[in-house]
């Protein structure tokens, strides 16, 4: 329905990966690399009697954002949970390496990663894990080349597993209420450690631990936005010039920030305990206020960092 609905006004959560790209970038500026007509489908899924996708669930390409040249990758979270397979991963790594190589020659200002993933695809897990490692390495190289890498997280699948690790490599992280960021997903924790450790059916608990509000309160995400494509776009435009340089000083600051956070809140079992400890006025209310009210709430002092 991309041609009927104004993409910029669309819910980010409900939009497809293609529609998210169309709405985040300047209208009509997107040029796809390895589009669906190339049929770069997974060579593994058919062996498991599974149907594929013509883009293997990842759309990559170039465009402009507020007139500046950017590369962009978007995962389709509804196809196999947005999970990383061999082709999917290779497309992401290839895009990042192209951004590194073209940073100066083509004036690439940023790479936007529209993550929406449960992690690695089980049917091609080894290739997926390798792709995550290569993508992380490539993000570091892109940042060293002076190009900001911005993660946008607000889809159905969140950014879990290797996707969660990838966000941690980025210069900046933008998240919405629906967005979740983590490594082991709730079901994985429950399966391995039992329901007393983590009840994955308790959606309130899942969002209190992994959700966008908690991540942005603590500085695990840099910007909290309303669930609109236009808000993600505006935040990306605003964050590109604010991306910290990838230097030893940045990494030392990040390490210090995380160590202090662990020291302060390492024994907390749930997010409201953290808010209580940090002296937030209404700890249980954080989950209940509107998106607009939450967006203007003060964050924990730990969130006021310029690390990452």
């Amino acid at each position, binding site marked *: *329905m991309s*041609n*009927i609905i104004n993409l910029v006004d669309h819910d980010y959560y409900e939009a*497809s990966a*293609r529609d998210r790209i169309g709405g985040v970038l300047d209208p009509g500026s997107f040029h796809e690399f390895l*589009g*669906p*007509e190339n*049929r770069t489908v997974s060579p593994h899924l*058919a062996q498991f*009697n*599974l*149907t*594929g*996708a*013509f883009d293997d669930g990842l759309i990559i390409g170039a465009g402009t954002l507020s007139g500046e040249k950017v590369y962009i990758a978007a995962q*389709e979270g*509804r*196809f196999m949970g947005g999970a990383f397979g061999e082709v999917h991963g290779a497309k992401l790594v290839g895009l990042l390496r192209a951004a590194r190589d073209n940073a100066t020659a083509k004036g690439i200002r940023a790479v936007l990663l529209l993550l929406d993933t449960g992690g690695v695809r089980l049917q091609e897990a080894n290739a997926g894990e390798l792709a995550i490692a290569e993508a992380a390495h490539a993000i570091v190289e892109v940042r060293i080349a002076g190009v900001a890498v911005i993660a946008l997280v607000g889809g159905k699948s969140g950014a879990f597993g290797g996707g969660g690790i990838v966000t941690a490599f980025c210069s900046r992280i933008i998240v919405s209420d629906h967005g979740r960021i983590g490594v082991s997903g709730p079901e994985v924790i429950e399966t391995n450690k039992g329901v007393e450790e983590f009840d994955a059916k308790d959606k309130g608990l899942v969002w209190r631990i992994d959700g966008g509000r908690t991540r942005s309160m603590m500085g695990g995400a840099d910007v909290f936005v309303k669930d609109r494509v236009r808000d993600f776009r505006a935040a990306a435009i605003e964050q590109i010039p604010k991306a910290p340089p990838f230097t030893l000083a940045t990494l030392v600051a990040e390490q210090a920030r995380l160590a202090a956070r662990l020291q302060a809140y390492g024994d907390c079992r749930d997010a409201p305990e953290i808010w209580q400890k940090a002296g937030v006025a209404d700890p249980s209310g954080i989950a209940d206020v509107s998106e607009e009210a939450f967006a203007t709430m003060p964050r924990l002092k730990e969130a006021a960092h310029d690390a990452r």
Partner: protein
Amino acid sequence: MEQFQIHVASARPAPGDRRQATVGVNASGNIEILVERVLPETECLVEVTTAVTGYRTLWQAVIEDFCDRCPTGGLRFAINDGGARPDIVHLRLMQGARLMGGEP
């Protein structure tokens, strides 16, 4: 999983000059269609890869009905189906044809 092709030999030429369009997503109850203008203008080909086996006759009926309603000559539809119902399949085919026709 099942794969087959359905060929319509006497389709009306599809309007517009767009070369390619993509609609939908291969997800549960949904369908991904890649439409390309690559065939002689009275032919239409639908290549189906579906997660659900045994419904070829139903696919045939839906696609023939679609080609009766819509001018699809010259178009090849490649489908990755995640178990969409016939009404969803029909809507997605219509959506793809409309995009190819250059309608807003």
